[in-house]
């Protein structure tokens, strides 16, 4: 006897959703529960975790306030720098480039993703190190220029690393832009600049918001780029977490910070969505 239609549909839904749900439950939900349990525990005298129920770890969060502040400053600045670089690129790709060339250029934006960010960041270490660009400066008589392990190097690494994540959503939203609106604007006598601010930019805002949210959230957990291009002197929450688990072995405090970071990310996401809704004047904006 054939299955009723509704049952069949439910089975198909379960089959589609099942694997991802199991995966997320085992590798996201369960570990997160473990972290919450740890966060209310105590550091054992020799390090590690000791069962307890205390709010001591959360009360002590202030001891890493510098790391939180650094991260909360870096993430928006990095995202803004990415946006400034990415928008003209995305605009050119979507509006100005010919279709044949567009395919090539879009591929070029994506291709670096095929190589690990780690390897590409290492390349920057050599480019910015004394045997790289500063060595070229020596040929023109400028000695002892230091580029590596500066805040500028960290910002450069961030813009380089996250640029494709910003370009792609903006490109997609600009590509969907109805060209007839631009023509109408021009026909009605608007200068290109007012067409851009009156039509192009507002219509691409969903893409901009997606890009900014994506980059900001990833930057909140960033660890690698400050470590490699900042010389370990730039300390973010990611760095604090690594040290707490691997150096001082204060797992409960590390867990409390991890939980707090998740809360911060959720808040940032909610605020970003609220802004996006207001700016776009609709609830149709999908951030992630």
């Amino acid at each position, binding site marked *: 006897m054939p299955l009723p239609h509704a049952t069949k549909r439910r089975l198909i839904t379960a089959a589609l959703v099942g694997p991802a749900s199991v995966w997320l439950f085992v590798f996201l939900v369960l570990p997160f529960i473990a972290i919450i349990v740890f966060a209310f525990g105590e550091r054992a005298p020799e390090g590690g975790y000791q069962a307890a129920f205390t709010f001591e770890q959360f009360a002590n969060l202030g001891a890493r306030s510098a790391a939180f502040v650094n991260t909360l400053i870096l993430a928006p600045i990095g995202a803004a720098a990415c946006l400034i670089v990415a928008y003209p690129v995305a605009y050119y790709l979507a509006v100005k480039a010919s279709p044949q060339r567009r395919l090539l250029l879009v591929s070029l934006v994506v291709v670096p993703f095929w190589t690990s960010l780690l390897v590409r960041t290492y390349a920057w270490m050599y480019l910015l190190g004394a045997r790289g660009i500063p060595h070229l400066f020596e040929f023109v008589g400028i000695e002892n220029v230091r580029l590596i392990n500066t805040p500028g190097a960290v910002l450069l690494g961030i813009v380089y690393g996250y640029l494709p994540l910003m370009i792609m959503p903006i490109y997609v939203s600009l590509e969907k832009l109805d060209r007839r609106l631009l023509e109408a604007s021009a026909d009605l006598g608007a200068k290109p600049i007012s067409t851009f601010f009156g039509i192009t930019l507002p219509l691409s805002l969903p893409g901009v918001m997606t890009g900014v949210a994506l980059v900001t959230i990833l930057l909140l957990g960033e660890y690698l780029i400050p470590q490699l291009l900042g*010389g370990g002197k730039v300390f973010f929450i990611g760095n604090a977490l690594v040290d707490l688990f691997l*150096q001082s072995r204060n797992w409960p405090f590390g867990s409390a910070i991890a939980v707090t970071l998740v809360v911060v990310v959720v808040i940032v996401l909610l605020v970003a969505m609220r802004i996006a809704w207001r700016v776009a004047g609709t609830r149709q904006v999908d951030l992630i």
Partner: protein
Amino acid sequence: MSKDYKDNLPISAEGFMDEFMRLKRGSVSRRHFLGVTGLGLATAVLSRFPGALSTPAYAAEDLGTQMSIATWPNYHDPATFENFKAATGVAVEVNVFGSNEEMLAKLQAGASGWSLFVPTNYTISTHHKLGLIEELDLSKIPNFSQATENPRFTKEGQIDGKTYAVPKNWGTTGFSVNTSKIKTKLSSWKDFFEIAQTEADGRAMVHDYQLTTIGSALVSLGYDFNSIKADELAKAEELLIKVKPHLFAINSDYQPSMRSTDAWLTMCWTNDGAQLNRDMPELAYVLGTDGGEIWTDYYAIPKDAPNKAAGYALLNYLMDPQNAVKEHIANGAPSTDSRVIALLPKEVTSNKIVYPDEAALTPLEFGAAVTLTDPGRAELMARFKSA
């Protein structure tokens, strides 16, 4: 061509992520990373043919085909592991760490997978207390000879008359200075922290490691290297935070930056100091006249070692003076075993970086166990790094 492409990958996806995470942490050198991920081919060749070259020498006991060791950067002759594999058929996976704390963290977390590891003197009592290491069965390491070991460097391997660890190398923590860039002659940790803020502004490195960074700052202020007194630590913190804006980096992997001349001055271990000086004679190695660290690294076997037989076999192989001497020449760290010293060429034993005069060693102190677990030092380090 039915072979899976994965057959030819030098490293599994999980292995790659492991290495990647450690490199992200900054605790392994990029040379190590490139090596083990197959971006350099060395390790690929090592692990390609398990068992293909085994000889009957070790056939009495089943050693398996694979074991892993946790050790320090630039600390072994790669040929040692190739030769061990040729002799026993056991491929050795080498895990490199930048601090004892991290090794301890992995062992505490469990299932480290190591069958042998290289802890420093002051950590052994903690490993023992936590039940992470076991008493060594000396009958399985006949090449080890207590009689020829210098007792100065071996006492922390024994607890209550039982041997838990046997010495690998000893050494010192001084600093390496590029004398073609820095003209002032440095001789103490006091000098180190002064020059780091002036002549070496933006060019000095300290370790990403509480023991030596905090310890050396304490020494420069006239305090004990191992102090955990709150007022002395507060003074050291003040100094470190004052110096921080002038530093090039906080990183225990300082060889690449010294070699590229990005950095001109760095805290430095004997073996790295010797390697740097060998390749670039202008990189001098200095021991603080005001103090600093003297250390011994040991070999120990974790209680949960997955391949104890191979761990013992490798340990015994490394304790053979003929093999130890090759390790010594490759890594540049001095030996605790007079049998090894007797085999060394004159240019090594007369190298003052490797074998300093006794007078230079007198002010140095061994690290103390309490620094490993003291929350005050750990928090100081975090405040220094986040300042």
